[in-house]
């Protein structure tokens, strides 16, 4: 399952980041590594991007990018 498929208000754990190069590094920097817990807070009024909580802060990311993050 990827982060994109998770419903609102659910908590999931990151398994793997399937991105490449600079984007992968950026995801690492923001805390997406194996074992990180993520809470899905909400979706923007137009449906995309989404807002999530991880490591004690709030982050927004798009569905396309969330699709690269494997969770369980």
């Amino acid at each position, binding site marked *: 399952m990827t982060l994109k498929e998770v419903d609102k208000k659910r*908590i999931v754990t990151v398994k*793997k*980041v399937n*991105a490449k190069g*600079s*984007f992968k*590094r*950026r*995801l*690492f*920097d*923001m*805390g997406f*590594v*194996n*074992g*990180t*817990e993520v*809470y899905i*807070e*909400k*979706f*923007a*009024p*137009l*449906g*995309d*991007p989404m*807002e999530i*909580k991880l*490591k*004690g*802060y*709030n*982050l*927004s*990311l*798009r569905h*396309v*990018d969330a699709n690269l993050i494997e969770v369980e």
Partner: protein
Amino acid sequence: MSTCTIALAGNPNSGKTTLFNVLTGSNHSVGNWPGVTVEKKHGKVKLNKKIDVVDLPGTYSLTAYSMEERIARNYIVDDELDVVVNIVDGTNLERNLFLTSQIIELGKPVIIALNMMDEVEKNNERISIDKLSDELGIPVIGISALKADGIENLLEIVMEVYNNKDKYQPKPWKYSKEIENKISELFNKIEKLNLIDSKYPNRWMALKLIESDKEISEKINLRIDSRNEELEDKLVEEKYKRIGSIVNKCLETKRKFNEFTASDKIDRVLTNKLFGLPIFGMIMYLTFWLTFNVGGIFMDLLDGFVADVVQPIVGSFLIGVGAAEWLQSLIIDGIIGGVGGVLMFLPNIIFLFLAISLLEDTGYMARVAFILDKAMRKIGLSGKAFIPMIMGFGCNVPAIIATRTLENEKDRMIAILINPFMSCGARLPVYVLLSTAFFPGNEALVTFSLYILGFVMAIIMAFIFKKTLFKSEPSPFLMELPTYRMPSIKNVLLKLWLRVKDYITKAGTVIFVASVVVWFILGYNITGAVGINESFGAAIGKMISPIFKPLGFGNWQASLSLIAGLLAKEVVVSNMAIIYGLGDAVAEAALEGNASGFLPTLSAAFSQVSAYAFMVFILLYTPCVAVIGTIKRETKS
């Protein structure tokens, strides 16, 4: 004794600039959205003149992927730098410490300034500072930059570390055996290269090679043979694991996901699925209402003051001291008319900047990007590109600099190039002047339509650029949504003052000089003092005016104003003020709501249609010199 140089490093929005201002007593602009500081700034510490302080751009990491991160890491290893002060947001410990782990790797003495301790307390959290210091092996000082708490303590430790650098050399973190083996293998290879001019520690370079850091591998011409991605993932994972265990030991109460803060609750309303967009529209409308309607009231007062008090007093004073007629004319018509004509719009500017400052400081700006990202993507830009666009309503210069937060270089080019279409504060006086004169009762609507037109133009141009010159894949969008904060009145006023000061300075310098020049060329020709229609100015204006004939404002007065406006858009107004002797007349018309009965010259020169055409031209033609300079610098062209 030599001076000690410290650098402030930390995540975006962790309060570095606030601390910098507290330390140096200077007034740099801060805001509650990530990426306010985009250049490194220097200053001297007020309490201890022996300390120089450099404010580095905020970064999440020290990779080679963005300009700011390269600036930051290159500076940290610079010989000139003695101590790194790492600002860590106490409310967001885990992610902030990731950068700390990388700063430690660079080998310079590090002190952690644990910021926002007041907020940590408010959230009912407790951080054990001693434990954190023990675990990390570096000094940690709790501060609140906003309230200037703990600053003396911090400076004391800075000097202590500076005087005992060897003692405070941070110990590099150890990783699992697998990674350590790779590190020592690469370390040996690097050592053999015998890099004399490299400032980076060898162990750090080895780590960067594992992370396949492009800059380092190119610099030392050494590539990790098998691009071992698994190892790279593992390295980051181990770092976070260690940080996680440190945080668990030091953070006594950890907030759970389902414990919502006040900020979360505010956000549920402001970015609500149904109300989010209407609320955004309302906020924008309110901003303009404040600028035009409320600002307009003060503008009339100010104008009345200049016309009824300043001008008569100065006039009678000049007559009293027996000033020559030309001098009277220079001061009354040229300087008071020209500079006063621009200063008259100060209230509008103040309210506009006040609104922008509030949007920045509360944390709403980042939400604007969040709400509008999907729409912005339709034209090929990210939601983040919207922030500089709103700032452009104030002034295009800082707005263009703010585009540095966009990761994708091509997106940044587009964002820079479309920014001048956002009607800046300097164009506002032109709109207010002409719309009050020609569209009484509808001035707010007319002005608003120009803002919209500029915005639409920006969107269209962005779309065209994206499809032609700057084709690229959509860049990822990862943006921190900062906690909503009550803006500090001090910060808002400070920022407002900085911007207002800019405007007044411009009125006192560029516009002052321009007013004198305009006064001269409108009152004289080669034979001496003449009527306005025989002047140099009329001759110049007449020469160019045929170009503007098709646009409906082919009179020499308008043409001359446009040329003068290249210098600064406000000059258009001061120019017209001198030509048409504006000022009191505008106020009267505004009060009477009647345009036809006044200003015979202005209404003879323009019809409603040509006045609108003139405003559109002001909106769309060349940006002012300062903006052109900034664009040139920022695009390196």
